[in-house]
């Protein structure tokens, strides 16, 4: 109700503004505009009230022009100049209001159909909003926390992982064939890399690694010291690093070299399959 009244008052304010522009003013104070709006509203209400009273005084219900004239006289409004006033200036007519339609925009964002009101709710109340606004649908299934299911899942994953790894090694590493013909390689066996001599690891058992320098084959240092691209360079470097181990005999060095050479044979040039390289600090 208040909003409606505000709207009508706003229209009055707009009409007053146009009248003032016709008169010759360009700007107006806010106080003045409010005052004039209030005056216009009071004028309209007063003339309506007075005319209605005159109408009822003469025993009628519907007002006539005479009631309005008497109302003007009572209020002291001089209406003799009305005709001249109308004919004199061309008064501006306010443009018709464009009905605002914000509802349409909201409907464009509608997702799904709105549910109908249940029976116990009267129809004149507003309808439900879009269902996604208040209905929660889980987008995924609840995970299975069953012990058996999880164990089984884990076992299956482990098996798959092992399978995949072995397949990968078969593709990349040298393989042996079960059969004599090279074509049908259905059951490839991953080639074993023999160390020389084969019984060396048995003679020198190592439960724990105390000193990395004592290690004959330290995978970490090997990876660090090998650049991925140049083989010859890696061989020389590897031999250089191995020279630092003073405990080894030349035989052992030769053995190591021999053993390492075989491992270097399968070194991959593919940068995606090579070992990761730490950021270079110096020439290494």
């Amino acid at each position, binding site marked *: 109700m208040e909003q409606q009244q505000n709207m*009508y008052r706003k*229209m*009055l304010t707009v*009409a*007053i503004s*146009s*009248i*003032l522009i*016709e*008169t*010759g*003013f*360009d*700007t*107006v*104070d806010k*106080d*003045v505009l409010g*005052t*004039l709006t209030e*005056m*216009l*509203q009071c*004028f*309209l*209400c*007063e*003339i*309506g*009230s007075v*005319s*209605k009273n005159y109408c009822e005084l003469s025993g009628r219900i*519907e*007002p006539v*022009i*005479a009631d*309005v*004239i008497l109302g*003007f006289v009572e209020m002291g*409004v001089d*209406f*003799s*100049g*009305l*005709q001249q*006033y*109308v004919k004199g200036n061309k*008064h*501006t*007519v*306010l443009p*018709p209001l464009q009905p605002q339609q914000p509802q349409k925009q909201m409907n464009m964002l509608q997702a799904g159909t709105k549910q109908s009101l249940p029976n116990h709710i009267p129809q004149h109340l507003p309808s439900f909003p879009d269902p996604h606004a208040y209905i929660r649908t889980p987008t995924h299934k609840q995970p299975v926390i069953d012990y058996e299911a999880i164990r089984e899942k884990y076992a299956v994953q482990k098996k798959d992982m092992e399978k995949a790894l072995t397949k990968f090694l078969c593709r990349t590493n040298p393989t042996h064939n079960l059969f004599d013909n090279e074509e049908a390689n259905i059951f490839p066996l991953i080639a074993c890399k023999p160390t020389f001599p084969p019984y060396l690891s048995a003679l020198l058992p190592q439960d724990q690694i105390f000193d990395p320098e004592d290690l004959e084959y330290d995978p970490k240092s090997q990876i660090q010291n090998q650049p991925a691209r140049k083989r010859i360079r890696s061989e020389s470097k590897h031999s250089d690093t191995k020279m630092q181990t003073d405990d080894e005999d030349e035989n052992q060095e030769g053995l190591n070299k021999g053993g390492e050479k075989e491992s270097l044979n399968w070194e991959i040039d593919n940068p995606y399959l090579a070992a990761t390289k730490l950021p270079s600090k110096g020439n290494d």
Partner: protein
Amino acid sequence: MNYSDKLNQVENSNDDTDSQAQTLGQPLSDFLLQLEDYTPTVPDAVTAHFLHSSGFEPKDPRLLRLISIAAQKFISDIANDALQHCKMRSSNSSSSHSSSRSKGSKDRRYCLTMEDLTPALAEFGITIKKPHYYV
């Protein structure tokens, strides 16, 4: 001769006012016929809303237009008086300060303030006292 002429003139003027008083309603009822093709500035719906709030519901929509035109003229008269006041002020100030400077172009933009409105309304019998600021 002069006295009789004057009497005649007075009688004629009296007759005129009487005739005016008797036929006061007629021009307006004729005016109503002309109102159909004229749209006042205040929209009909707005006038109708305020008149309805007082209980005035005319069957003839031309009455609405008559009242809205009367209201429009009311405001227009006040605005004209205020414009006169405003122009008097600006002419006074311009003549006192400097008449050689071309202040005419600047003063063409009139601003209706309470200072101009208050004396204009006082002539109509409406006194207004508004505080400059609210605390």
